[in-house]
């Protein structure tokens, strides 16, 4: 124990900290974590977050099922994941302690709301004895505070009812943690005043609780030392802290602006994709139309109808929704109309784990339609990368007149990271032309419009109703190439199957070259897709520092594969594919390139950490 004066002086600088806020889902842990993250972002740290919440809106209070947690990794250098083991656990109740203490690093710090550790809550969390007293916490640094009581106490004179005051205890925790990690307080105070504007009592209670928590750190005798994380050395620019669903929505808007084609979103609410619908619905000033459809099928159907009318048709969903949209995707393949299908993947099968992440929809994206129905697949690597991925999906859809599947996942959707904002003028022009008149001569020498005449990309023209002289009928029945007339001719069907595949393959000609990071010609090559990017990048860094030679290639385009991928996979001793499924990309690579790829699987609803990847890669490589 140190005395107050010494303690105030003692601020130790560290390069990074990982804090995990855990409590009951009614305790406001997501809000608390989010505020701590924002304050850190504004102090210039690099960061990555992992929000975790139960599927139930209000799981029974105090139970293990009801634990809601938010982990944030802040650093003075470029980081890519939410971190391995947290250094600090804020446990607002026994259930949070029970479920999350095993995640804490050994010797880490536990901050406890002692008021919640009473008989009833201990029983609900299946503790036989009080972990604060029975030695469970031996070896950890423990900071205890009667947060509920102290919050009620400071709110007493404000005229706030005790029951309402209790709700502010998360701000006490936030104040305490902000003190401990020397976070600036003003942004949070400002945020409280804005967020609860018009609710003066709530503002007063939250501010009082926040200040009380901060003061508790200053005046109580705490064993833990204060830590500071310096601003990260990031490339110069303007930054914002962004989650994947927001970045994806903005990417769609940016692409729509750069294409000059308004967005039509047809969507049905589903976790974890609904926030894209919410975000896009806010931006009608960009000409965005949104329809909350009656079901997933109508969501994609309406988007396809809008695409037929010349709009950028988009539908957003998660795996169960994609399953329902399959038939309409097949129609879009047959009609050769642009459409973007966003799959924010979650744990499956069936309802599975709605609020947990997984990346097991790749095969469904690749093959999940009847008949030979190829379509391009684009995937996002990190929360902010969802912006670029969305832009790329739209580019392909519009230029090649095809439905495109854009894969994100729950980790990207809700996780945040600092994003260096692009200069909007630097985004490419992806504008497209609509058919304006006849494009063929019929047998009688008359100028006519044939819907399936193709350009050099093998794309047919986007011919929209309302245009003079190009009236035509299209449909899902097999048609003759060129004229678009219904055709049951066997030779024609074979030819159309080939054309539909070939025109998708042509898209690969428009990709930039792949980049192998780390050691490009290393014997060990890691091939990744989607949100594993952060953990793989972290693992590659650690392996290299340990003297291992490894390369990493991450795929933006999962179908068609990039033309230079085959060359990159050649002559490696180990091709290792970490993925959050049982080996779907691995199987596709083996089939396509006859390469002996090895999967590192994780299908637990949790993203990879760099640490576990390092261990498993070392096991494989030996």
């Amino acid at each position, binding site marked *: 124990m140190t005395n107050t004066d010494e303690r105030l002086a003692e601020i130790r600088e560290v390069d990074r900290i990982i804090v995990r806020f855990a409590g009951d889902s009614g305790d406001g842990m997501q809000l608390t974590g989010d505020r701590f993250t924002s304050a850190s972002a504004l102090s210039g740290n690099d960061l990555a977050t992992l929000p975790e919440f139960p599927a139930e809106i209000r799981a029974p209070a105090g139970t293990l099922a009801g634990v809601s947690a938010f982990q944030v990794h802040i650093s003075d250098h470029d980081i890519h994941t939410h971190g391995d083991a947290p250094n600090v656990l804020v446990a607002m109740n026994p259930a949070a302690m029970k479920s999350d203490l095993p995640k804490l690093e050994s010797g880490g710090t536990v901050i406890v709301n002692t008021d919640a550790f009473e008989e009833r809550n201990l029983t609900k969390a299946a503790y036989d004895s009080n972990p604060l007293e029975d030695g469970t916490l031996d070896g950890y640094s423990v900071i205890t505070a009667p947060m509920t009581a102290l919050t009620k106490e400071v709110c007493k004179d404000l005229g706030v009812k005790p029951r309402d005051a209790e709700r502010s205890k998360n701000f006490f925790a936030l104040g305490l943690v902000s003190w401990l990690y020397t976070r600036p307080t003003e942004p949070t105070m400002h945020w409280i005043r804005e967020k609860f504007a018009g609710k003066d009592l709530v503002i007063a209670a939250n501010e009082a609780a926040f200040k009380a928590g901060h003061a508790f750190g200053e005046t109580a005798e705490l064993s833990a030392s204060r830590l500071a994380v310096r601003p990260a050395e990031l490339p110069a620019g303007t930054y914002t802290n962004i989650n994947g669903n*927001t970045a994806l929505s903005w990417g769609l808007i940016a692409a729509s602006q750069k294409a000059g084609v308004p967005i039509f979103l047809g969507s049905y609410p589903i976790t974890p994709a609904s926030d894209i619908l919410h975000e896009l619905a806010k931006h009608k000033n960009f000409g965005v139309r949104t329809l909350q459809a009656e079901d997933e099928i109508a969501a994609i159907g309406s988007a396809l109808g*809008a695409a037929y009318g010349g709009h950028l048709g988009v539908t957003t969903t998660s795996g169960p929704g994609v399953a329902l949209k399959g038939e309409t995707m*097949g129609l879009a393949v047959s009609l050769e109309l642009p459409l973007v299908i966003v799959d924010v993947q979650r744990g499956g099968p069936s309802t599975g784990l709605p609020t947990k992440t997984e990346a097991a929809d790749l095969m469904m994206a690749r093959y999940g339609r009847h008949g030979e129905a190829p379509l391009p697949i684009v995937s996002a690597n990190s929360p902010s990368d969802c912006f670029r991925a969305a832009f790329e999906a739209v580019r392909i859809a519009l230029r090649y007149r095809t439905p495109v599947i854009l894969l994100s996942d729950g980790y990207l959707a809700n996780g945040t990271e600092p994003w260096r904002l692009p200069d909007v003028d630097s985004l490419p022009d992806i504008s497209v032309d609509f058919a304006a008149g006849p494009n063929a001569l019929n047998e009688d020498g008359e100028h006519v419009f044939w819907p399936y005449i193709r350009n050099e990309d093998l794309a047919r023209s986007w011919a*929209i109703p309302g245009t003079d002289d190009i009236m035509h009928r299209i449909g899902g029945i097999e048609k003759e190439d060129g004229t678009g007339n219904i055709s049951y001719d066997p030779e024609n069907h074979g030819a159309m199957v080939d054309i539909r595949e070939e025109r998708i393959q042509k898209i690969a000609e428009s990709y930039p070259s792949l980049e192998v990071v780390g050691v490009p010609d290393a014997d060990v090559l890691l091939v990744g897709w989607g949100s594993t990017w952060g953990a793989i990048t972290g693992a590659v860094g650690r392996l290299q520092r340990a003297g291992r030679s490894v390369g990493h290639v991450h795929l933006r385009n999962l179908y068609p594969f990039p033309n230079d991928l085959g060359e990159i996979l050649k002559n490696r001793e180990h091709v290792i594919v970490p993925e959050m499924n049982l080996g779907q990309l691995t199987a596709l690579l083996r089939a396509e390139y006859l390469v002996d790829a090895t999967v590192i699987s994780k299908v637990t609803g949790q993203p990879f950490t760099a640490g576990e990847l390092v261990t498993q890669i070392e096991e494989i490589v030996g």
Partner: protein
Amino acid sequence: MSDTATTTKKDWTSDQEVRWCPGCGDYSILTAMQLLMPEIGTRREDTVFISGIGCAARFPYYMNTYGMHSIHGRSPAIATGLAMARPDLDVWVVGGDGDMLSIGGNHLIHALRRNVNLTILLFNNQIYGLTKGQYSPTSEVGKVTNSTPMGSLDTPFNPVSVALGVEATFVARTHDMDRAHMQEMFRRAHDHNGAAIVEVYQNCNVFNDGAFASITKKDARADMLIELTNGEPVRFGPEGERGVMLDNGIARIVEVDDVGVDALIVHNEAAPDSSVAFALSRLAGDRESPTPVGVFRALDSIDYGAAVNAQLAAAQTEGGGDLHGLLHSLPTWEVS
């Protein structure tokens, strides 16, 4: 040629060979439509027919307009997106009873309650034609088909009752034996603001021949069809000797002489409450009973596409979106 004033039936007829069975009721519906379109006052280039799957769904191929033959049941959903995105277009939806009331029932009811600006033609032949004669959601109980060798067990939908029950603002019924009546119903439906549905009794002479003959054949019509005329008492029969009155909320067929004309329902298609229209729709219980045809309901209201676009316009009163501003709308910080 894009001037509507000069078009003829030929201009609205595509070059595709019509492939319905000879004698199918769909032919007379198609002819009625092709003859009507030149009079209706819209451009072919602004007209779109969307269909699902089934015999009726071949319809768009035969109209020289824009058209999409989509997938089973989904035409109201696809048309909803098109009509919302392009309120300038004249969007028609055509389908059969299986397409729109079975596999696509959900989309139909939601397009109706949203009041999307669509003109929906439901060809009801009470059978599955294209899949060779299974019973449909409008087939009468006890229907013996390949899939129901001992007779069907399910209660059928009454499409007009369904439409009225889901807040449709325009609901009408007609039949394929009376071109003038069809055209009048199609025209009224087209002119309606918002979702309009017309049920067309259509004869499938291959799998369900004569399903409506007892009410639609010429010499039966006077006794069996109850023509609804707005503002008039609901009466029918060769001399107008029969009528319909409300009895505890239930529509009953009565002899006018017994009750007096003043006791009859005076048809009000614009009534905000659809209860009386619903009561009238229940009269089509079976083929042996007099059946109302005409406009059951025509309630003026704002259509969905117009409402959506009004919101867009309101959001743009300050001008369109600014992309740079959007990207900077969350708290930002500078790194130098």
